[in-house]
């Protein structure tokens, strides 16, 4: 990753565990098990760049995003926004959210159905900056324009908008307070192909225009490839590989990354990669993860050490980190 002062967000051994209470006592402090949703994640997002966090369901990427956004308190570790720690309670949430905003996956539930578009977009301006009505109105119009919608959309209700338009409004709302970092949680998964393309292009334009940094959560490798500068792959709460996007996609070294990239369908009937992949088993449970390396039961390279010790991330080529005991063998 780039040198520290150029990093907009950095996490240090961030963990988020959810306690599972067995038994009927709602007040019991004794917990039988924990869902280790995020288990020691350290990554950084360089300024003006996009980092894709990629993984399948249950890998913890959404929980990671929500923990970084302080929507849920971290269990351990530290988060630094622009080198200021946000996990020690010294920065108020309002202060943080002026600089960090989020776009959610489901456009249908992103907007309050009873509020007009202009009110929804203006909400962060009124709540975080306490601007007056007329200032808010100007900012709302500029936001709408930036996402390609005309000013008259401000008076519409969400039910009068299509899925793609709703997502644009959600983006307009997120950029209204002029944040430095946007967390995009699967921003196009719920949209059709042509709408997805429009939104992705819009996000790239906005990044160039406003020098935004993005944390892009996605399960779609093609989207990650198109949008990002760096990629981090998560499995069962750990980051198993991270590095520059081209390196990770063309020279993946973690067996899970290899399987993941091989499973992504390519739109070319002459390259039927899917039919060659061979991946066994099911995604690891986050409650009872396998001991040692979480991926070891499914890994074709696994050996005895893999079920004992969970490998840490180590640098195997400039800026390319892999968490695998046998990373040299997988090339």
């Amino acid at each position: 990753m780039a040198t520290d002062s150029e990093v907009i967000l950095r996490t240090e051994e961030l963990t988020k565990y959810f306690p599972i209470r067995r038994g009927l006592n709602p007040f019991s402090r004794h917990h039988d098990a924990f869902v280790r949703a995020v288990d020691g994640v350290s990554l950084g997002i360089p300024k003006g760049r996009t980092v894709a966090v990629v993984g399948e369901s249950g890998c913890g990427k959404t929980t990671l995003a929500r923990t970084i956004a302080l929507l849920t308190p971290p269990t351990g570790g530290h988060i630094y926004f622009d080198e200021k720690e946000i996990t020690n309670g010294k920065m108020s949430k309002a202060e943080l959210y002026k600089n960090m905003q989020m776009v959610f996956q489901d456009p249908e539930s992103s907007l309050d159905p009873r509020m007009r578009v202009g009110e929804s977009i203006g909400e962060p301006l009124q709540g975080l900056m306490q601007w007056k009505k007329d200032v808010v109105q100007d900012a709302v119009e500029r936001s709408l324009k930036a996402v390609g919608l005309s000013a008259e959309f401000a008076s519409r209700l969400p039910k009068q908008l299509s899925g793609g338009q709703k997502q644009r409004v959600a983006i307009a709302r997120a950029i209204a307070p002029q944040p430095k970092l946007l967390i995009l949680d699967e921003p196009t998964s719920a949209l059709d192909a042509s709408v997805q393309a429009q939104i992705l292009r819009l996000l790239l334009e906005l990044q160039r225009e406003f020098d935004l940094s993005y944390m892009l959560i996605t399960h779609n490798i093609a989207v990650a490839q198109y949008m990002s500068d760096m990629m981090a792959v998560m499995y069962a709460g750990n980051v198993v590989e991270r590095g520059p996007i081209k390196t990770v996609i063309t020279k993946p070294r973690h067996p899970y990354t290899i399987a993941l990239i091989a499973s992504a369908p390519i739109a070319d009937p002459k390259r039927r990669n899917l039919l060659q992949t061979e991946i066994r088993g099911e995604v690891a449970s986050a409650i009872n993860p396998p001991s040692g390396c979480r991926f070891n039961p499914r890994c074709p390279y696994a050996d005895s050490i893999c079920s004992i010790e969970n490998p840490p991330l180590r640098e195997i080529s400039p800026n390319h980190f892999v968490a695998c005991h046998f990373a040299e063998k997988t090339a």
Partner: protein
Amino acid sequence: MDTLLSIQNLTVVYDTASKRVIAVDDVNVELKQDEFLAVVGESGCGKSTLGLSVIGLLPKPGARVSAGSIKYKDTDLLKLGSNKIREFRGTEIAMIFQEPLTSLSPVYRVEEQIAEAILVREMRKKGKKVTSDVMQTTYRNDSAPVSVTRIPRLKRRSIPGELRGEVIEYLKLVRIADPEQVLDRYPFELSGGMIQRVMIAMALSQEPALLIADEPTTALDVTTQAQVLKLMKELIKKVRTSILLVTHDLAVASQVADRVIVMYAGEIAEDADVLSLFSKPLHPYTNGLLSCIPSGYKDESELNPIAGALPDLSVRSIGCKFAPRCPRAMQVCSTHRPSLTSLEKNHKVSCFLYGN
């Protein structure tokens, strides 16, 4: 290769209180024996409706077939009453759906559900009527009748050895590791991918000639999707089942299909074998769809989204439905409807750019 399924001039409408939506508009499709056909399109194009109408599962008040025929091996399925259709459904024609969690009954174990499917097949083979309350039949050589009733009991139902054996065979066919363990599980204990595989096992136990799969992998993880798709492709060869796959994902179609049909707003835009479609896409919509797929790296590639939005399907259109969004639209496109014509062997397109 013979034609297994022949859909001619099919039109399906949805009637709501305020308007009538034409979901499928005068569509012609042919599916041959052993063929893997993918029907691709965005939401609202009518692909799911097409799949549901073959098997007669259109939502009862609301949707109806207003014209056309669906011939399965020379029988027009649309002319059959609902009782007759049931004989085809689940035996010759099987279907699997998108949402795995709601496809299996939550109160029965996997073993019981697959056994039930097999018993239905046995009853049909013996010419017995399949009623909905109690199914009893003699399974193969066992002299005692086996019944799978709908009243759950606390004791474990016992299923005779031979029947159990066949259930395990099917689970192995769909590459489920530890089939003996999975037999005893309830659906909520299984992951989405496992359930989809159980669904495929159930569908295959009927020995169908045609399997219709409606977005079977959309709700699954990418690695699980790869496993399930690979399985479906293998099965065509092994059990000689033809597959009609409905999907919104062109990439998925390119990986597994022999032939691809692209639908737009209820009509077929292009119908070609998979290699031709991707190397020489003819219809501007197909082109648009292909250029919407993100490929290539940031700052190095261009995504060219299709401008505009889907037309209102409740309004009867005059010209080509794609014309308002088409970068190559001509005068004739807004006044006349193009029809699906063969341009080359195995490549049909519905567009005035190519004559007609």
